[in-house]
């Protein structure tokens, strides 16, 4: 009897203890599960900009030709003429084909310390609805809902398409918005001259401001739509005046306008930002 009386309270205690342990285990499991969920979700959304920027040593007098248009409007004559002009002016030239123009490419662009960046890219400041959008530079990277999630959520990356028909077919690419330039590009530009040859680059000043905020000296682009042939011709003339004749930004643009005029179809003009860069010369 005695042993029975002893056993009963011991059994109760044992059961209570076991129950407590079990609850503790469940609580622990739930906590761990929640932590895993939080880590998993936040891990995907952590901005890659928190990563350490690469620190390339400054390279003197390098120019990048970012030829995204090589995918749709290839112009070997332009590439050769421009390369010759740049070499004549004493620059080393890095040429990037359209396929290389990805989100990661843009992210690391300032780290190369280019003196001049020639963006021969598709760009747009027009939404599919026809309303105005921030100037967006095209990449050749197809849209994915599992890549660059944080940048997509924060409007640093937009979706872009060459036309309404292509959009209907689901052919969409990532586009670089001004927010990406200021928030996700690694490093800073070192007084870089940005020549943005695409459409509507100065339809609004958001992209220009973003580049200047990131360290660019001047941002030159079109105030409306432009055809590939006209932007190629105008840029060739502009580089001649700016780099070979060593004229100021303002003079170079004026001379270029005298020679090639506005775009014959879209009537757009080359312009620059900020106004303070008018007297800037190489």
């Amino acid at each position, binding site marked *: 009897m005695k042993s029975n009386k002893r056993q009963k309270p011991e059994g109760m205690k044992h059961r209570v203890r076991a*129950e407590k342990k*079990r*609850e503790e285990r*469940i*609580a622990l*499991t*739930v906590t761990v*599960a*929640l932590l895993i*969920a939080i880590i*998993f*979700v936040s891990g*995907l959304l952590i901005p890659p900009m928190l990563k350490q920027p690469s620190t390339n040593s400054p390279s003197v007098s390098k120019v990048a030709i970012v030829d995204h*248009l090589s995918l*749709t*409007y290839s112009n070997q004559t332009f590439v050769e003429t421009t390369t010759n002009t740049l070499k004549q002016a004493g620059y080393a030239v890095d040429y990037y084909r359209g396929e290389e123009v990805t989100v990661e490419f843009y992210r690391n662009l300032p780290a190369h310390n280019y003196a001049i960046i020639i963006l021969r*890219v*598709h*760009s*747009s*400041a*027009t*939404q*599919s609805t026809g309303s105005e*959008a*921030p100037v*967006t530079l*095209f990449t050749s990277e197809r849209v994915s*809902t*599992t890549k660059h*999630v944080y940048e*997509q*959520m924060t*409007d640093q*990356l*937009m*979706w*872009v*398409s*060459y*036309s*309404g028909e*292509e*959009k209907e077919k689901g052919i*969409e690419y990532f*586009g670089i918005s001004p927010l990406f330039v200021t928030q996700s590009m690694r490093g800073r530009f070192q007084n870089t001259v940005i020549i943005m*040859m*695409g*459409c*509507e680059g100065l339809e609004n000043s958001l992209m220009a401001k973003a580049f200047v905020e990131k360290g660019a000296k001047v941002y030159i682009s079109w105030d409306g*739509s*432009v*055809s*590939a*042939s*006209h*932007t190629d011709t105008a840029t060739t003339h502009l580089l001649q005046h700016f780099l070979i004749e060593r004229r100021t930004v303002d003079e170079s643009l004026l001379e270029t306008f005298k020679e090639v005029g506005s775009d*014959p*179809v*879209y009537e757009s003009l080359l312009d620059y930002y900020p106004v303070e860069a008018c007297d800037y010369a190489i």
Partner: protein
Amino acid sequence: MTSSISMLMLITVLWSRCNILASAEPTTTQERWATIQDINKDQIKVETTSDKVWAELVELYQNQSQRWIGGIVEKYVNEWGFRFNPDTIMVAEVTIEAIQTTIRGISQNLGYWLGNMAVVAARVIEIHQPQPVGGIVIPVDKFVLLAPYIGLTSIIVAISVASVLYAKRKRSQKA
């Protein structure tokens, strides 16, 4: 020796003939052009250096109206052997009868029309102008973007809540 020279001459003649044939393809000098079709369904490309005339051609393409379209006839390498000088293109609703003709009429009587103004009653059936290096910006569909994460989080939360409820229920049963 003679046969070799003859062969060489023949090759040269054939080669130059090939080049002539190749250059007989319809060509354009401007970046923009319109194809017009006259009352006989004959077609010819029309180029213009004038923005005003170009705007009229584009409008005609859009509303599919018939007008008198023409210019000063000049020799050109295309299937008709002529074109309207791009600096002289005119689009009109009414013209004098003396200059009215057809594409075929000009081609068959080229000697008469060369250097003179001619117009044909035609519709613009095609417009070609260089495409801009632009595109469209599409706002990101954030719901589509977050859907998998919302689903996953919901599942984990549901499992957690179910576990807590189960544990509470067990404990109350024991008590």
